[in-house]
């Protein structure tokens, strides 16, 4: 991968556009009509207190939300201008374009480091055996894990440290070459040094991927993202460039939250 560390010169086009999305768990409505543009090759952070619906929102973006029992959603979400909830879209194929990293590192317990990286390709039946080694090395290098695991690719994925496991999960997502990477509080189970490695990684990945990251950690949003959305009780309170949101919020609720008055 050629890492281009300079930020894009002009505002990037919208990769994913969220328009009036409402979501339910059973009869409980958790999102009340959220609009959010997610720009290509940039990092969009979604912040907000626990239970504000930020995880639900991000899970609507790759249609994982509907897998939970009793969960449904309405409104429109487009990827490159095409509605991902339309009848022609197969959610399985959509998820190959929109990858996801979860809160708790979840490498497959029965698989080695190498097999974890290849899992996505094997599960989708699209692994080219002759290229397997290249895929593994590239994904692990992109996830900044290669140097630490290159001598124990055959070791169980669960044998790695928590931070390494999470980078392994990122490598696993990257191996299927998604366009968008969704991260649902990817550092909440990690210690500070592992967290900072993941943040560096996110920074590097934004040159290639469109990234949306959910975090309850405001400093993290400030450090890694280009745009930030503040969600409160299922409503989008404010969305703007990260710098502006943290230095001169327009809404008093945003200000209260980022100055630590609640949450």
């Amino acid at each position, binding site marked *: 991968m050629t890492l281009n560390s300079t930020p894009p010169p002009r505002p990037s086009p919208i990769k994913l556009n969220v328009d009036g999305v409402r979501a339910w768990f059973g009869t409980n409505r958790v999102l009340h009509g959220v609009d959010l543009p997610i720009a290509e090759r940039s990092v969009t952070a979604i912040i907000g207190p626990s239970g504000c619906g930020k995880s639900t929102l991000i899970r609507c973006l*790759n249609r*994982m939300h509907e*897998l939970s*029992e009793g969960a449904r959603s309405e409104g429109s979400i487009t990827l490159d201008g095409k509605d991902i909830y339309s009848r022609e879209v197969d959610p*399985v*194929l*959509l*998820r*190959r*374009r929109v*990858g*996801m990293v*979860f809160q*708790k590192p*979840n490498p*497959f*317990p*029965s*698989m080695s480091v190498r097999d974890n990286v290849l*899992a*996505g390709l*094997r*599960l*989708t*039946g699209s692994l080219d055996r002759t290229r397997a080694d290249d895929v593994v090395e590239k994904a692990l290098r992109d996830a900044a894990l290669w140097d630490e695991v290159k001598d124990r690719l055959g070791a169980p994925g*669960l044998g790695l440290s928590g931070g390494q496991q999470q980078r392994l*999960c990122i490598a*696993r*997502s990257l191996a*299927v070459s998604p366009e968008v990477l969704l991260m649902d509080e990817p550092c909440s189970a990690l210690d500070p040094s592992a967290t900072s490695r993941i943040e560096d990684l996110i920074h590097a990945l934004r040159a290639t991927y469109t990234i949306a990251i959910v975090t309850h950690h405001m400093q993290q949003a400030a450090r890694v993202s280009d745009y930030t959305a503040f969600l409160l009780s299922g409503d989008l309170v404010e969305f703007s460039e990260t710098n502006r949101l943290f230095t001169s919020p327009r809404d008093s609720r945003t200000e209260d939250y980022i100055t630590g008055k609640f949450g």
Partner: protein
Amino acid sequence: MPASSEILAMPTQAQPAGHTPQAAASRIERVIEALLAACSIATVLTTAGILLVLAVETWSFLREVGIGKLLFDTEWTPLFAQKHFGIWPLVAGTCLTSLCAIAVALPLGVLSAIFMSELASPRLRKWCKPLLEILAGVPTIVYGYFALVVVTPILQRMIPDLAGFNALSAGLVMGIMITPIIASLAEDALHAVPKGLREAAYALGASKVPTILRVVVPAAMGGIAASVIIAVSRAVGETMIVAIAAGQQPRLTLDPRVPIETMTAYIVQVSMGDTPAGTLEYRTIFVVGSALFLLTLAMNVTSYKLAKRFRRAT
């Protein structure tokens, strides 16, 4: 007794023992504790007693006959004039019927576990599992006659030289009997696989079947293997079906079409007969019992270890 009175009374007032409700309650508690302890001690003592009897009788048999005849003879005819004490025909009979059983129960049990855990709607699952478990509650004598009078005649139409008593029919029916064990325990193991792993697979763009086969089942493998071993050890110990449907002819063979005798069926045969206690013939049933005990013990230990490894892994 309301909990608040206990809290109020506890700290300061030292009341005469035996008169307060607290003292009465703690006396009752002590009695209950003693009763419960007695119950568990009784079960431990029973097990110990069984082991002791097995060991003593086996020991006196071995002193008389020698372990060589037990292990290096290929015939088992302790009730005949020409006595042979090679235990392998009985072991072969047990293995043969158990193999037939597992050949039926493994695919049937694991597939129904996968169906119930991963594919069935929650409502169907709620009905399915208890229904399947009813199968485990059918008395084995019923299975035995089912094998003898229903399954064997049907099989005889397909396999002309099948004997009236045979290992095949008994094994197949035993397989049906142990299917619910595998289905139920394997379903528990599959159900215990963390949701996060399924989500990880779906997020990679995997559809349902690959996710089940490559992620969920491997993650539950320890539990599934444990369930299979428990089911096999149940098959090895099963008595009624094989005593009724498999015949009573100890024979060192792996041919499922002919009559054989399992270890359990031999024990039944001798204990139901008029073999006088204390004779060598009588002691053979304890020898066979010991062998059976060791076999199932080994399997249960393996299954326990597998299940433990499986719990650590997830």
